[in-house]
């Protein structure tokens, strides 16, 4: 199979997020980027498919802080190629990001093979303008399914499982080539030891795709960004555990429980 995994770096929410002076972007001071969680699952799903059906995995990203670490990690896990599109992802909205990825696929020497799957993460915490995966599928005019939590390939077609809610899932048949937005892989993402990543840094190469930067960075008229007011703070029960337990018992009684 020809597997393309699209990786996207997103602001790490473990760090404190602040709004920059322009009121439209994040303050760079404490900002750190990490690989979008579902993208990590997309890579894992690709690795599982490769293990089962063979083929190659090409990992594609835009330029972003700490992105090289993510690419080398992907290579250490078993991706075959890592390609970086020279466009600053942090400045782009999801639509511009999708356009950059679309340009990458348009620039491929041959059209996408009949066994090609494009696997972006299903969504990201900064998807204000929509999901990269869905927009890319529209641009490439390919079949698309999102919130995918499992992929199996049989005879040129893939069966993908989508998560609804309440544990309910649905099975879909998808013709290839296609774009599948991965929410979670069949297995949790594997661990790759630091030594292997470091070996990949020495041995492997990150390719650069020669692509014109996409048009307007953002589609939306972003008025301003701000931190939410801490509202509706809980009434804190304090004291020794014994007292707290007694207070909770009272609250339960007030609500007709116990």
């Amino acid at each position, binding site marked *: 199979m020809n597997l393309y995994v699209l990786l996207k770096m997103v602001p790490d929410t473990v760090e404190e997020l602040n709004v920059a002076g322009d009121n439209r972007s994040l303050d760079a001071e404490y900002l750190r980027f990490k690989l979008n969680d579902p993208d990590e699952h997309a890579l894992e799903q690709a690795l599982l498919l490769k293990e089962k059906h063979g083929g190659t995995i090409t990992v594609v990203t835009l330029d972003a802080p700490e992105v090289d670490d993510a690419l080398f990690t992907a290579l250490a896990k078993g991706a075959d190629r890592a390609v970086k599109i020279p466009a600053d992802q942090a400045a782009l909205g999801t639509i511009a990001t999708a356009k950059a990825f679309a340009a990458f696929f348009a620039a491929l020497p041959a059209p996408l093979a009949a066994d090609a799957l494009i696997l972006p993460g299903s969504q990201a915490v900064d*998807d204000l303008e929509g999901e990269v995966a869905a927009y890319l599928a529209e641009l490439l005019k390919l079949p698309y399914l999102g919130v995918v939590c499992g992929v199996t390939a049989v005879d040129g077609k893939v069966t993908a499982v989508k998560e609804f809610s*309440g544990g309910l899932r649905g099975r879909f048949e998808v*013709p290839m080539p296609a774009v599948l937005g991965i929410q979670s892989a069949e297995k949790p993402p594997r661990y790759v030891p630091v030594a292997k990543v470091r070996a990949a840094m020495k041995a492997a190469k990150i390719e650069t795709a020669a692509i014109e930067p996409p048009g307007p960075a953002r589609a939306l008229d972003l008025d301003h960004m701000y931190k939410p007011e801490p509202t509706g703070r809980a009434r804190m029960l304090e004291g020794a555990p014994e007292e707290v337990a007694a207070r909770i018992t009272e609250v339960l009684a007030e609500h007709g429980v116990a």
Partner: protein
Amino acid sequence: MSTAILVLVEQLRGQVADITFEMLGAARKMAASAQRPVHAVALGRDAAGLATRLGAADSVLVVDDPVLDQPTAEAAVAVLQQIMEQKQAGLLLLGGTNVSFGLGTRLAARTQLPFVNFCKGARTDGDALVLTSQLFGGKILSDVKLAQGRGIASIYPGAFPADAGRSDKTPAVEKLALAVPAPKVVFQQYIEPEAGDVDITKQSVLVAVGRGIQSADNVQLAEELAQTLGGAVCASRPVIDQGWLPLSRQVGKSGMTVKPRVYLAFGISGAPEHWDGMQNSECIIAVNTDPKAPIFDGAHYGVVGDAVELIPLLNEKIHAKKG
């Protein structure tokens, strides 16, 4: 500007989801100052029958093609695009749920309308509609201006009150005959959640455990407390991922949405994915060791402390009270 507002009725297997009423409520709010008509769009063979419940809309637009009974986004996208053109609709509201996932982005690509994700609030500003979105797991809000109130928005579940979208009125039903393309992504079947377990959506008391519960043994402590209270144990995703509880006990975005009378959250930090599933509980009591845990921002009562310590104590107290 007086373009219509469309609200896509969200239903799965014939069940209308609460988000539909939340959206109708939101639509009414957005429509109020601009006097825009609000149309509910119901797709599928039995869609016309839903009209009685959609009284908050001025009319219900129905496309009763059997293909639309299936949860295939592709057909819905094609139909919605046609309706928007036909009705000159300026704004489309969609549920920010897994069921409607991806619709907005694809419509945005086809209609070139702006799409706003994670929408939690709305206000009008002259001609424009200003939508507030929650980004980065709720750490940042961002206001987006839709000129002439034109665009597509995905409404964050729980952000708007559902009651505002309920009405006894029976709106007019208009059946639309539209071309419904055969989807390339073919729905095959539903995979049911693991059966034979307690239905946590039907409990009046839930004892919820999160990462802070530390071990499978401690889940047992919660189980005992739930028994004493006559409720059930549920959990956030990390606990389910550990295999300490079955998938049917998961509360949150990819799990169940629950509304018990009392929701006791032990060792749950309150990530948005979890918050989505339990925010409408009547009374939320949260216990967490981290005083900065986001759950305290939304819970009714909070305790900074060790859940593992508190659970057995509480169990004892309630037992004692019961005599």
